[in-house]
């Protein structure tokens, strides 16, 4: 078992990060309130780690390993720590081929994914706190504009790349076709070699004659 200081530190960092998100995005906090009472347990191995994510009216609370006093989790995720880590940074959060097993209420995970993929910070509040109420909203407008432009650029890029990829992938041969082509090449090479040898034999016969 890992030193509790390490697992607790990981939980503290995750809690702090989620706390910052819910502090500056009331929409996410509102969405979490609807899931209040749910508890997700991450039962990880290699290294052995237990994490609990408690959803309450104030957001998310992360704890590390206290099986004795807690109610059974509503959702249980089991698997290797490395798989869970990779899963977090995947674009598509499908559990297929992720190496993770899930038990209990899966809907909560889908709802959390939707909530956290639509996070929108209240930049006016964040920057007004730091820069004052005059400069804050001006910079917030700029930040929002830059973020919107980047988002739009990313969406445009995706829209443009997707059809190209689809066309290219359609044009590209699949594995089986490639194997068949390789076999045909091998057969052709063999036939050519055979023909060459036959030709050499015929030449030799002609020369003798």
């Amino acid at each position: 078992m890992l030193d509790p200081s390490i697992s607790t530190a990981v939980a503290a960092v995750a809690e702090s990060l989620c706390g910052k998100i819910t502090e500056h995005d009331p929409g996410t906090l509102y969405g979490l309130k609807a899931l209040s009472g749910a508890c997700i347990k991450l039962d990880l191995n290699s290294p052995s780690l237990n994490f609990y994510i408690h959803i309450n009216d104030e957001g998310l609370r992360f704890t590390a390993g206290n099986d004795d006093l807690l109610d059974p989790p509503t959702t249980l995720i089991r698997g290797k720590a490395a798989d869970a880590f990779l899963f977090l940074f995947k674009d598509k959060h499908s559990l297929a081929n992720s190496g993770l097993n899930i038990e209990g209420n899966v809907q909560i995970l889908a709802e959390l994914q939707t909530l956290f993929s639509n996070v929108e910070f209240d930049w006016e509040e964040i920057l007004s706190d730091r820069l004052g109420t005059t400069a804050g909203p001006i910079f917030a407008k700029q930040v929002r504009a830059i973020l919107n432009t980047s988002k739009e650029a990313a969406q445009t890029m995706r829209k443009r790349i997707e059809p190209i990829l689809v066309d290219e992938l359609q044009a590209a041969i699949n594995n089986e076709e490639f194997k068949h082509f390789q076999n045909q090449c091998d057969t052709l090479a063999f036939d050519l070699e055979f023909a060459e040898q036959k030709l050499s034999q015929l030449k030799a016969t002609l020369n003798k004659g």
Partner: protein
Amino acid sequence: MSEDNTTHFGFEKVKVEEKSGRVANVFHSVAAKYDLMNDLMSGGVHRIWKKFTIEISGVRSGDTVLDIAGGTGDLSAKFSKLVGESGQVVLADINDSMLKVGRDKLINRGILGNLRFAQADAQYLPFPDNTFDCITIAFGLRNVTDKDLALRSMYRVLKPGGRLLVLEFSKPQNALLQKAYDTYSFRILPGMGKLVAGDSESYRYLAESIRMHPDQETLKSMMTDAGFDDCRFYNMTGGVVALHKGTKA
């Protein structure tokens, strides 16, 4: 505590009746910069140790919690949130300077309502029997003159089924870590105390008192002797700190 009526004050042997006064002087001296020094001395890791303590406590809404030697109120602040309006937290400390710093800090942070403050000696807790669902004492037990008496007093005020959590410096489980820890405690810590809090002696006492504190197994058996059931401990940061947990049957 020994039979010749003496006890330890760091590495020094003093009369039993002297210890509380001398410990009080240490904490009067460090109270104002206690939080800052805690962060500096532990590199902020004391927050992780305290978070783990809160997790293990299993405190829920409506519970009554006693935070002994609560000092500047780090644990009480978290417990206050967990127990909610229907629960109650008592922040107790024998030292009025520490209690004042803690009270002011919590009030300034808007933590009010379910929080009470009490200047109390852990050996003679001024509460009725079977009052609390959970009692914590974080980095305080080593300063208590008669630890067995304090543990029995805690057992008395704990409700049946209640938990006692003792968070305290302990014995590192690795020889190399022990060596590094000794160097840090006796060479760096007093210097840091002098630089930041203007008091190297108090921090020298803190380092010495940690070495004189019972190790993990000894404290566990002391808790068992005081009447606690299901006693266990969790080593943290390689045993630099240990969290002991006992339950009142």
